């Protein structure tokens, strides 16, 4: 029995206490206080021990205990109850359901609060909402579930980062069990390189949040307004995501084994022309051009050689018809194994868990594997002193897809590859792409996938120890020391077979990123009830320091045929580097919550932060906030209302800050520079005094509940202004630098959020819940020091985005497409005077604002249905009003353009969309005439900016839970089948409307699609076994 082996294993690993010796056996039945139904699976524990049991299918239990002792009954969704036995042998218990959502406890910064007492805007999600989903990043499981929180996947790359935007502000602070985490990508391989090996863009990043196993997480709270977030002052300007992991509960040691396996399949594959259609397109393009040439033989410039239009095309169909996307996108497996144990007595509690996650990417030769473990321990040493620790270790190994979404990537090369080219030639070698007919390729994509071997390996330790001491009855002191250690190894090997490394007979690079953060927090908490008032106050002092180092080495020339990939076997070291950086933060914080009679709630917070990133004279920032709550339903005048059972008004105002400018920007520095074998210094930056960016935020909201929780929800209006933006601001280039880091500009986010939770059906057989949220956000630049500046997603192309007052962050900038001239099939564009001109005449000077990456509104609808032992869940997510700049599409909708390649080859194959092209005068279409010599399209135009609104059916799960009657080795087992990313409703023509080829790093250049790795659909089966 496999399961028993795990039990044995755990028995060795985990401390088990001895069962108490006792003369009495207590039996009884546990029922629901409301409907009297029996409750199976209730935990029954002898207080102060781990001795306990659970009720059987009939709600009955039997437990040997000492005669005078206390039993604790607990069950999910019910209030726990303690019962003194007092020599009884039969103890029946009725548990009271926790129906009202407002009674939930939520985690706030440096403490917890009952949801009914909240005055700030906080959204909370529990484990049950995100467990059993095949994701590497917990944020993915929250998509569409929280009002005001827009989470989008930037790429289907296993382990890819997500763009998390809270009320229009991207990149929130993550706090895991009190430790502010490094969330930015830290793999140097996130860089995209151009042909000469120069970095051109940030590319696809890997999220460091993915080091946390989603199923270890108990709850996630998002602090959205200033009042809630201000306690994290300095880094809370973009909101705070608080992640709380599972902790031990007193009682019998409960084991849980979870497993799922599934298959991922590529979806929304772009369809390409087959070999014959491809040749037809080229012939048509040449015929079109020849007609023009025959009319005017200077049309293509003097000395134009017309033979490329008249000579017979020397390649015909050879029977080869490769569907390249099918060659690089394959069905691939995913699986997860997880074992956890929780238990303890009233002195010591623990949670321990281990997980192995194994995902193969749908792009061939990509994979993500993660092994992680966690121990959370709490111990009550004396009445006054308690302490504990949290440890999370993880190891992940990620086989990356080389140059994910840039020019020379695997998917990029497969798009538009020649259908006449077979993947392998007759001898079984990779086909030589230079002998075929599309010059878009930089390599045979199969060869890239096999012969470029990039791995990212991460080792992560997140650990904290804490102690709490009760100084008096009302006053306690808590101190904690935490560390976040992160080690990322990037290795890349190009075999001598690859085009990139042919000339140098193989090349390799290896870089190591290492970062250590330590944090010390010291918090005094005072709670006191004075008459009808309840006071809770905290004061604290925290400090933290982060040091990191990055070293890298590149080499070339590997012994042919040896298989050696180590740098030490290389002929030449081409570069070596080692750099480091660090920063520190010191903070003082305080908060007072006052609750008068459960009706009037007041909260005031202040935090002062000092950061090493600023010069001593303007190092400290003060971030105060205040909020007020009024529980109207508790007022006498409201009376006993059967309909409206809870109503609360909240309002808050406050400041939060931002210091995200990178280290060592506060001074002008010189950096090492080399020439002729010597090393010297040249200027690195220019500096002006900078200080904290501050975010002024106002929030007003109502929490309401009808019919005792049957329907409940919230409405919030918010307005936040990020002022003194810390930005890379453009300055005159004659200073020697294009940009300087300074406080300039203002961004405003305002909008409405609505959440409704409804219990549609609730009886002893069926329970059906629906939750719905929708957020309307308007984001715009209010002021900028350089209005109208253009930005490029990849810095070797034309600009793609603009920063302009009145426009939102991530606004596109492109030439406006005016459609196809029905007379001659020319693509037409509006020039600066508004006249329509063709692709050869238009210049980029005519470009203008062309849509935005941010949606007008977004949200999700989630349904859960429980019927008997069955459970069913459907989760959806929608975004409306956002656009994507589908830049890559211009490459595969080139309409037979030769890119100067002459008769030997055209630019790239075309998607089937090209079949709708203009063919003869009078054709009304949006796809221009095919042309061999001239580019009859402009790739920096609105031709490729598409509406990317979507509705995604993200998760559908059906489960069945078994409560065995006559089996004693497990208490329950749930089997389930699930589909992730079942379907996307969208007009977008690329792989996926949720995309950002530049990763999640810079919202200013968001929504740009350069062949990002497509998101798969995943079918999976799994089970949760409790024993």
């Amino acid at each position, binding site marked *: 029995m496999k399961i028993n082996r795990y039990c044995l294993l755990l028995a060795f690993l985990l401390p088990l206490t001895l069962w108490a010796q006792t003369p009495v056996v207590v039996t009884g039945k546990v029922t629901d206080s409301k409907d009297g139904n029996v409750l199976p699976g209730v935990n029954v524990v002898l207080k102060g021990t781990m001795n306990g049991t659970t009720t059987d299918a009939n709600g009955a239990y039997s437990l040997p205990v000492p005669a005078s002792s206390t039993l604790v009954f607990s069950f999910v969704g019910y209030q726990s109850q303690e019962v003194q036995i007092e020599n009884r042998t039969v103890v029946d218990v009725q548990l009271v359901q926790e129906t009202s959502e407002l009674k939930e406890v939520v985690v706030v910064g440096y403490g917890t609060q009952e949801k009914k007492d909240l005055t700030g805007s906080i959204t909370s999600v529990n484990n049950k909402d995100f467990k059993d989903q095949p994701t590497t990043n917990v944020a993915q499981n929250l998509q569409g579930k929280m009002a005001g929180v827009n989470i989008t996947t930037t790429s289907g790359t296993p382990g890819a980062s997500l763009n998390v935007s809270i009320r229009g502000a991207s990149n929130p602070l993550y706090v895991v069990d009190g430790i502010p985490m490094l969330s930015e990508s830290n793999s140097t391989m996130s860089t995209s390189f151009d*042909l000469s090996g120069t970095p051109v863009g940030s590319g696809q990043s890997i999220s460091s949040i993915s080091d946390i196993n989603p199923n270890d997480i108990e709850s996630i709270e998002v602090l959205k307004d200033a009042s809630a977030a201000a306690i994290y002052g300095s880094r809370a300007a973009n909101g705070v995501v608080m992640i709380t992991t599972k902790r031990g509960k007193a009682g019998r040691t409960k084991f849980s084994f979870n497993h799922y396996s599934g298959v991922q399949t590529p979806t929304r594959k772009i369809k390409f022309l087959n070999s014959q259609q491809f040749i037809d397109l080229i012939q048509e393009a040449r015929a079109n051009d020849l007609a023009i040439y025959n009319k005017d033989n200077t049309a293509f410039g003097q000395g134009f050689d017309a033979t490329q239009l008249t000579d017979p095309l020397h390649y015909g169909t050879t029977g080869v018809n490769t569907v390249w996307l099918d060659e690089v996108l394959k069905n691939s497996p995913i699986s997860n194994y997880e074992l956890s144990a929780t238990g303890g007595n009233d002195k010591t509690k623990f949670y321990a868990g281990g997980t192995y996650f194994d995902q193969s990417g749908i792009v061939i030769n990509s994979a993500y594997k993660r092994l992680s473990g966690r121990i959370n321990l709490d111990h009550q040493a004396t009445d006054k002193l308690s302490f504990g620790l949290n440890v999370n270790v993880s190891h992940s190994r990620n086989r990356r897809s080389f140059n994910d979404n840039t020019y020379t990537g695997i998917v990029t090369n497969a798009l538009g590859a020649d259908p006449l080219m077979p993947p392998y030639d007759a001898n079984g070698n990779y086909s030589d792409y*230079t002998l075929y*007919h599309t010059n878009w390729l930089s390599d045979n994509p199969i060869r890239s996938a096999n012969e470029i071997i990039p791995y990212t390996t991460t080792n992560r330790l997140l650990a904290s120890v804490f102690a709490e001491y009760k100084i008096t009855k009302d006053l306690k002191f808590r101190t904690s020391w935490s560390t976040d250690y992160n080690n990322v190894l990037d290795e890349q090997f190009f075999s001598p077979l690859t085009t990139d490394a042919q*000339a*140098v007979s193989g090349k390799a690079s290896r870089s190591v990123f290492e970062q250590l953060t330590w944090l010390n927090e*010291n918090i005094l908490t005072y709670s006191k009830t004075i008459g009808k008032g309840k006071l809770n106050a905290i004061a604290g002092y925290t400090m933290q320091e982060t040091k990191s180092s990055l070293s890298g080495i590149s080499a070339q020339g590997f012994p042919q045929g040896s298989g050696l990939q180590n740098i030490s076997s290389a002929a030449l070291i081409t*570069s070596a580097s080692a750099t480091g950086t660090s920063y520190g933060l010191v903070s003082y914080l305080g908060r007072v919550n006052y609750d008068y009679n459960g009706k009037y709630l007041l909260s005031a917070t202040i935090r002062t932060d000092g950061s090493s990133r600023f010069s001593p004279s303007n190092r400290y920032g003060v971030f105060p906030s205040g909020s007020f709550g009024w529980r109207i339903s508790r007022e006498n005048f409201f009376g006993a209302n059967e309909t409206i059972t809870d109503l609360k008004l909240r309002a808050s105002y406050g400041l939060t800050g931002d210091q995200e400018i990178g280290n060592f920007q506060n001074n002008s520095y010189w950096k090492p520079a080399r020439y002729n074998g010597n090393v010297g210094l040249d200027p690195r930056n220019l500096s002006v005094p900078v200080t904290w960016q501050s975010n002024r935020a106002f929030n007003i909201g109502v929490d309401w509940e009808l019919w005792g929780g049957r329907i409940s929800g919230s409405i919030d209006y918010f307005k936040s202004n990020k002022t003194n933006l810390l930005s890379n601001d453009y300055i005159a280039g004659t200073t*020697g*630098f294009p940009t300087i880091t300074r406080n300039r500009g203002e961004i405003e986010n305002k909008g409405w959020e609505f959440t409704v939770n409804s219990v549609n059906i609730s009886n002893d057989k069926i329970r059906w819940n629906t939750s719905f949220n929708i957020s309307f956000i308007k984001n715009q630049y209010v002021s900028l020091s350089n209005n109208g500046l253009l930005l490029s997603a990849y810095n070797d192309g034309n600009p793609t985005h603009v920063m302009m007052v009145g426009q939102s962050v991530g606004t596109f900038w492109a030439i406006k497409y005016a459609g196809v001239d029905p007379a001659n099939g020319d693509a037409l564009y509006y020039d600066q005077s508004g006249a329509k001109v063709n692709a050869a005449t238009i210049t980029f000077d005519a470009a203008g604002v062309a849509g935005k990456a941010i949606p007008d509104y977004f949200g999700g609808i989630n349904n859960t249905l429980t019927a008997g032992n069955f459970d069913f869940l459907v989760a959806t997510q929608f975004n409306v009003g956002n656009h994507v700049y589908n830049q890559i599409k211009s490459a595969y909708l080139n309409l037979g353009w030769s890119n100067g390649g002459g008769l030997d080859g055209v630019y790239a194959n075309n998607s089937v969309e090209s079949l709708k092209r203009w063919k003869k005068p009078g054709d009304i279409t949006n796809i221009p005439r095919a042309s061999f010599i001239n580019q009859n399209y402009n790739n920096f135009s609105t031709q490729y900016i598409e509406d990317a609104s979507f509705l995604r059916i993200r998760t559908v799960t059906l489960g069945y839970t078994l409560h065995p009657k006559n089996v004693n080795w497990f208490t329950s087992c749930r089997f389930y089948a699930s589909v992730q990313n079942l379907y996307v409703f969208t007009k977008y023509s690329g792989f996926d409307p949720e995309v950002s080829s530049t990763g999640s790093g810079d919202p200013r250049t968001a929504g740009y699609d350069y062949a990002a790795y497509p998101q798969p659909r995943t079918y999976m089966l799994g089970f949760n076994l409790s024993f």
Partner: protein
Amino acid sequence: MKKIAITFLTIIFISSCNVLDQVSPNDVADSKVFTTKAGAEAALVGLYSSMQAKYYYGGFYQLTADLNSDVGIDGGYQNTVLDELSNVSVSTSNTIVENLWLALYYTIATSNAIINRIDGVNDATFTQDERNSIKGQAMAVRALAHFDALRMFGEHWNTSSAYGIPVVTTIQKATDIVPRSSVASSYAAIINDLKTALTLVDKADRTPVYFNRVAVWALLSRAYLYQGDKANAIAAADSVINDGTFSLLDQNNFGKIYSAPYQSQESIFELTFSIQNQSGMNALTYLRPSALRSDVYFLANANLDTFFINRPGDPRAALVDFSPNDNDFSITPDGRSQKYRGETTRDNPAFILRMSEIYLIKAEAEGLAGGGLTELNTLRANRGMAPLTGATISTEADFTTALLDERKAELNFEGHRMFDLARNKVFAAVVGPVKNTTDYSVSDFNAILPIPKQEMIATKGALTQNPGYPTN
């Protein structure tokens, strides 16, 4: 308990001070650089390093000058910013244009830091001669960068034009904005820097990888020629020739210019690269034998093939490869310069000032009437070409054509063509027939690039856009 608490808190508070005082392990504070002799010397190394930037002599500066002319054509993946240069129809937001501008002024800013701060270095071991040598080189580099900016962004052929460049000679604050000088004042600043440099740089040193004294003369000669001061151009060229350190290689040896170990006797000033400090030239013009046209950014135009076909016996034809690599209908490009081979090392230098150019400068300044054919024929003799005679070159116009052809044959892919045509006021006339299409015709204003849009915005209207380019 209390004692423990107090000790504990004290430790925390003391360590907190350290937490906020972080020191960068990679950088040196600006205030510390010019405090010692070693610091000033380090800054000079940094100055040369700044010229190696990708968008300066690391590749793009020279190659842009050929691409925005009849000599070059772009490859690359539908790279519109390259297309614009190749089509000689550049938009103001072109990112290459912007990066060229930034690279030039970065070098100028670095030289200004040295020039303005070296006298303040308080180090007794730092002799006046050493200071002069560093300052002189910095002034020469500043002159070069200003000159390179002027011929790329200013109406350098017209000394009465207002469209010069911002001349920056002081250390800039972030908020400083420098308006454009006239062309005449721009030349004045450049020539003034070079004359001062002559008095400062080491009298004896002739190392070609640094801005030696002969290199200063050479640049002075070039600047006078562009300015139209022919007499001084000839005088400065004579100083270079008469110095005797550098001389022309003959037809059997001139290939040494372009092959390792480089620093041939023709190179007066070349920026050196190494395998650990690679140049972009190889990747941008050749990459690898089987590269595709989309892989290579800067290709030679078919026009250059025709040009060499019409110059039978010119050995320099071998420096551009127009023969397809194989006959298997390969899609590898025709027309790749062979001046920057070395795919494994990529240490191709930037040839900034060469002897052959000095003869061409002198010839151009002299003109047919001034005996320019002698200089032209000296170069031709060293390239195995028959001398030109008054019989075929009978007018000044013939001479200019012959001179421009000689320059094209000798200096292609070394960053001269666009400027040569503009200086001789034949830009549209020469480039037009090669690059015109039915929809776009090359104009003389295309002989220089626009002031980058980003710079126009960041300088809040202090700069005037070049004629012919949109002003918004």
